[in-house]
């Protein structure tokens, strides 16, 4: 007797427009800068930049260039989701930012290029490595990865 039934849920394609907040982010990527959203009412910077402040609901009018980026958290992925060893470990960093010495709330999760993950220290300055201008599409993958900033 048939015991199992295999089937799928498929949707050929999804597209997600970047929205109002994402448009500003895209503008920055073009110029190789990262913008943080600034909520005047709450006096608070936010990354990724949003179109509105989720706390006070006012519209974001100002986006400011981040002036400093540092590694706040990281993880080294050794196995895939199903427990199989990866050929090469993948390192993800959680990058946080500052705007003129002010903390930015949130940050970006991205790939981190590093030679020896065991030597990583939290707090080290990092910088984004952008794809060549021609290949950029105005989204997060325009950044190839973050890497340690050489002083």
């Amino acid at each position: 007797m048939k015991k199992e039934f295999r089937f799928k849920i498929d949707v050929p394609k999804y597209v997600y427009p970047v929205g109002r907040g994402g448009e500003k982010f895209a503008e920055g990527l073009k110029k190789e800068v990262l913008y943080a959203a600034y909520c005047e009412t709450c006096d608070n910077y936010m990354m990724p930049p949003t179109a509105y402040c989720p706390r006070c609901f006012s519209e974001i009018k100002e986006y400011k260039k981040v002036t400093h980026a540092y590694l706040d958290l990281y993880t080294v992925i050794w196995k895939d989701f199903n427990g199989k060893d990866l050929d090469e470990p993948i390192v993800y960093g959680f990058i946080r930012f500052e705007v003129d010495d002010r903390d930015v709330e949130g940050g970006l999760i991205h790939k981190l290029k590093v030679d020896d993950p065991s030597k990583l220290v939290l707090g080290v300055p990092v910088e984004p490595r952008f794809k060549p201008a021609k290949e950029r599409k105005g989204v997060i993958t325009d950044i190839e990865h973050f890497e340690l900033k050489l002083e």
Partner: protein
Amino acid sequence: MSRVALVGIGSTQYRPETSEKNFKELMYEAASRAYIDAGIEPRKDLDCVITASEDLWEGLAIFDEYVPDQLGGVLKPVFTVGGDGLHGIIHAYMLIKTGYFDLVAVEAHSKASEIETLQKIYHFAMDPLYIRPVVDNPYALAALEMMNIMRLLDITFDMLDMTIMKNHLNALEWGSPYARIYDYDNLESSEYVAQPLREVDIAPHVDGATVAVLASEEKAKELTDEPIWIEGVGWATQGGRIERNLHNFPVSLNTAGNMAYDMAGIENPMAELDFAEVDDRFSFRELASLAMLRLDGGDLMEMVVNGVYTLDGDFPVNTGGGFLGNGYPLEAGGMMKLLHAVKQLRGEAGFNQLDNPEKALVAVRREVPSNSYAVVILAR
């Protein structure tokens, strides 16, 4: 206004695979047990049925369609919560509090073993603009969270190991297929999945279903001499942006907990509660939950090291073995914990039975990458 009581609970076993039954039969098994336990005739007595689920766990768009028959809810008010089973309990609580509903059933289940592409579902839960194009593994997000929590709360691997050993040991009584008797050497040899997250820190997926029946005070007194009262509920989310939550404390659990404590009139939770079943989808989450729910006695490390949270300790936690010991049944997570707590309060916990517990807290957080919490306080 009427108090709300839990008058019946029924469950299937939680196992890595349940291939002999389809999801409807699994739900029916749990529901029949719950209705017998409550002593009700569902077709006649039930006022409302709630399920907790999300479409993609099930393989159906609009899962809500497929629930009324096997829960006795046809042509009754039935709906689905996109949340944990414990969120379902909270909605049932509110419905009864309105004064219009007397008997409400809540169901949640997992058929995780029947999903071949589980990873893609997790991936699909991530923000499509900033995270999904970069990260495809939910354990990466959990690992970042773990690093943050360990740093904020000064959690060491030793503390995690003690938690893992404790929960596995507690799960033995439940006949859990995952329960192991671990020692430090076993744990030390566990490999990193997503550093600092090790294999042993992750609760594996499990199948199963649990149904609970809630009643108004009047109805509860008709049905049983020993209802379990729901004294407080609380729920909160920390917001949708993981990036913001990654460098913070999980304060929303604190918010949800305080809401429940206020409702239950609890000022000093550790003294007034007898035990707690809290989220341990990942080992560090148990400790984070305890800290956020003010159940750490001011010094988490001291509590763990002194065995306060073990069955013999002053404040047992995850007496049923939690997710680490029993497996993680997706949205049924909170219901599994509720089941463990109710069994304790009723004195039906067998070898794990505590001495006459009267008040307990159940708290759960939804699966990665969410930041949603639900808390329920039960009393005998």
